[in-house]
């Protein structure tokens, strides 16, 4: 805003228009008296005019109808800066697969590339990438020497023609190249979306084999994308419902090794397993760690009645959290450890309830038609995933912790057992086909209900449990 100067200053000594000094006692005419005010008025009007004009010069537009579509991105093969060989290209392929697998990104085909990235430090020709409608560009390089590789990358916002954040690099063994690729993808994903990462994580599950009526089950663990499968147990006994500890170093599971279902804990590092305390004449199942990893909540069936108990994993001390003639099971801690959500048929059908972590009266939070089961609290703490059976169909759904805004994400013959990704954005679950030939498999879906896809496994699989982010 510019103020213009007008002859509005008040003279120290009255002067006439010829500059002659006017006697102080000389009476001022009306015009002379009004002149300062007129000038002041002019200045004020000019200022007001500038203000008005300044306001009008900047138009304001409301943008409130966004679109939801995948963002095109490009990952040229990472540069081999020595000794990497095909590893550089493989890492870039894993990065691209991670991003495209989210459903939020779509990779620009390499055939469409106009310019080639030949050096990690070469300037980016943004117009070439803009011309093929690429919005994000990831360049990287890999150095390998001995049993150590270094992966570095940069992310560019093609539209604005500038890098997005600083470049990063990771070092590790050649055997862990997939983890480094996942970490690169995690960094890109979090940088663009603002979500937490989840690519560098693992999933423990029950690997099945054999016919449906004589199914053999064993624990397997894999990368979130189905790669790097390792089996933790053999098929000598049936195992069910594995659950990762909050820091991923242990796994709880239910085993029929003793002939009755009982809870075991496995050290992931050395695969040592121990029974958490078998109580004669009872069955324990559906275990889950507390957020601090020191407490386990589980269901215990005794005399035909099932209630929820907690156990200090170090001392083995148990306490009963529910005491009802109905079946209470599938407990899950809230991220802050203050609440437990569980399922109960105390109302006549399976519904979801919530109670304090120390036990108490449960409050029902599910209110729709059908039966609700296997509730799992989101790592974010804002939602609860569940299995719903209604009108002969199974659904994986999610609702707010107060039971509102329920949404069903899937529907099939049998969907069950949801587990949250570490960032609380993706849910993995078991889907089983109908009939004797129906195979169980793992599926994942975005919490928005989009991007439903199957997780490739070596064979039938069920009961997935997502690990936290790997260290």
């Amino acid at each position, binding site marked *: 805003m510019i103020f213009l*100067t007008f002859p509005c200053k008040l003279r120290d000594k009255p002067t006439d228009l010829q500059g002659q000094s006017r006697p102080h006692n000389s009476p001022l005419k009306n015009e002379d008296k009004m002149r300062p005010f007129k000038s002041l008025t002019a200045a004020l*009007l000019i200022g007001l005019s500038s203000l008005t004009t300044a306001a009008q010069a900047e138009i304001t*537009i409301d943008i409130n109808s966004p679109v939801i579509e995948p963002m095109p991105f490009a990952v040229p093969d990472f540069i081999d800066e020595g000794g990497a060989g095909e590893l550089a290209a493989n890492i870039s392929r894993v990065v691209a697969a991670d991003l495209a697998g989210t459903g939020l990104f779509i990779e620009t085909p390499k055939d469409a590339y106009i310019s080639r990235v030949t050096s990690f430090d070469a300037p980016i020709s943004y117009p070439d990438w803009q011309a093929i409608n690429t919005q994000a560009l990831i360049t990287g390089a890999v150095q390998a020497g001995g049993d150590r590789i270094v992966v570095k990358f940069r992310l560019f916002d093609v539209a604005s023609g500038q890098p997005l954040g600083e470049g990063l690099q990771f070092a590790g063994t050649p055997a862990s190249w997939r983890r480094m690729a996942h970490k690169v993808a995690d960094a890109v994903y979090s940088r663009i979306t603002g979500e937490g990462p989840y690519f560098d994580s693992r999933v423990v599950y029950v690997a099945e084999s054999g016919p449906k009526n004589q199914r053999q089950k064993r624990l397997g663990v894999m990368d979130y994308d189905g790669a790097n499968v390792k089996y933790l147990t053999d098929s000598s006994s049936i195992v069910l419902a594995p659950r990762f500890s909050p820091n991923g170093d242990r796994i709880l599971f239910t085993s029929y090794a003793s002939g009755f279902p009982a809870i075991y804990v496995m050290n992931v590092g050395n695969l040592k397993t121990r029974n958490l305390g078998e109580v004669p004449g009872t069955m324990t199942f559906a275990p889950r760690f507390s957020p601090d990893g020191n407490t386990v909540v589980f269901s215990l069936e005794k005399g035909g009645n099932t209630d929820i108990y907690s156990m200090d994993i170090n001392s083995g001390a148990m306490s009963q959290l529910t005491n009802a003639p109905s079946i209470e099971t599938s407990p899950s801690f809230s991220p802050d450890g203050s609440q437990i959500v569980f399922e109960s048929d105390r109302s006549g059908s399976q519904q979801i309830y919530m109670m304090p972590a120390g036990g108490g009266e449960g409050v029902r939070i599910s209110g729709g038609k059908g039966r609700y089961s296997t509730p799992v609290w989101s790592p974010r703490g804002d939602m609860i995933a569940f299995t719903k059976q209604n009108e002969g169909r199974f659904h994986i759904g999610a609702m707010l912790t107060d039971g509102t805004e329920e949404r069903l994400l899937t529907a099939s013959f049998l969907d069950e057992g949801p587990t949250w990704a570490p960032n609380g954005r993706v849910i993995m679950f078991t889907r089983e086909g109908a009939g004797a030939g129906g195979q169980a498999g793992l599926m994942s879906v975005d919490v928005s209900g989009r991007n439903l896809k199957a997780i490739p496994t070596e064979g039938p699989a069920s009961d997935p449990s997502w690990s936290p982010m790997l260290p």
Partner: protein
Amino acid sequence: MDKSQILSGIGHAVVITWVVLGDWLFAPRELPPPDSVQVSMVSESDLKAMQDAAAKSVKPKADKPEVKPAKPPSKPQVEAPAPVEPEVAVAEPAPVKPAQPSPDIPVAADPQPNEAPPPVAPIAEAEQPIPVPTVNEKPKPRPATRITDTPMVSPEKTPEMADTATPEVTDQPTDQPVVEEPKPAAAPEEAAAQTAPDAVVTDAPELAPTSSRRPQTRPDKPVVETPVEDPQVALDAQAEKDAKAKADAQAKADEKAAKKAKEKADAQAKADAEAADQAAIDAALADAASDAPATDGGQTDIPEGPPMTAGEKEGLRVSINQCWNIGTLSTAAQRIKLTLRVEMKEDGTPDSNGITMTTFSGGDEATASQAFEAARRAVIRGVKGCGGKAGYDLDPAKYAEWNVMNLNFDASGMRLR
């Protein structure tokens, strides 16, 4: 019962009867079916042959062309399309409308134009006078009212005569102050055209006035100066004091002329100052009233133009909306409401370094950063358009209107959880 009601009842009964039975009683009889007249088409060649035959059989008589009209057929039905033999040959057959050439018929030569008919009147060798209407259309004066024959009686009262003589008006100036007739104050002619020293000087192109001018200021009250002490009246000029009086009058006249000159100079200067103030006020009012951008003291080079239309703004909004992709945003970032200030270049593209987030709400700064980047991408990509939609269509003449834009991004309407 009232007579009018009876009449009304009768009338209604008649109308109702008419409506009910009118169609039956006054139904129009069915019209007889129209007679059909069979006609036969005569081809062009047949017609020409008939005309040729007629021309051969009957010689035209140039002087008295005997024209016998053909007898109208007694019956409308024509039994057969017998060739009609024209009983009378026409001296000058009417030109036949050229038909489409048939392949079976040889093409005739081009018809020659008929000779022009003789003029109705012989052409005069000498120039004929232009006929003038004989009627004089000059309006006649209205008859005036008649003047009375009897003269009016003169007023009885005669004007009174003053006892003392009224002094004559002399050419000599007097010391008596002259009270001028009050005149509305007006600026000198040059004042409006002159540029006041401190007035706003604008280089902006002249535009049609967008608002009515401010009404003229109220005219100043006439300045009535306090009369000075009454001088001696010059009317008592005596013979022996004429010379002295003339000298005194001359001296006073000079003094008064100097005073008038000074007052005139004062008035001129005052008028100049007032004109400057008035010009500034008018300019300020004009700027405030108009939608045109500020002139910045006449130092701006941003072209002014008419304001953006609602359609242009809507087009801009649609273009950005089409490119605003929140699919890659976290659910928290989708909740962010933010305002971007976008500086545009004259070529209609946003200055990528001139896109800043002025405000945001609904989340923390880190989350707002992701929302800002998505919004910035939308603004930049919107130039070329997204999803098959056209990009910005900004009128360069209105650059002053869109050189800076404030964009409020709010996805609360279709937010995902």
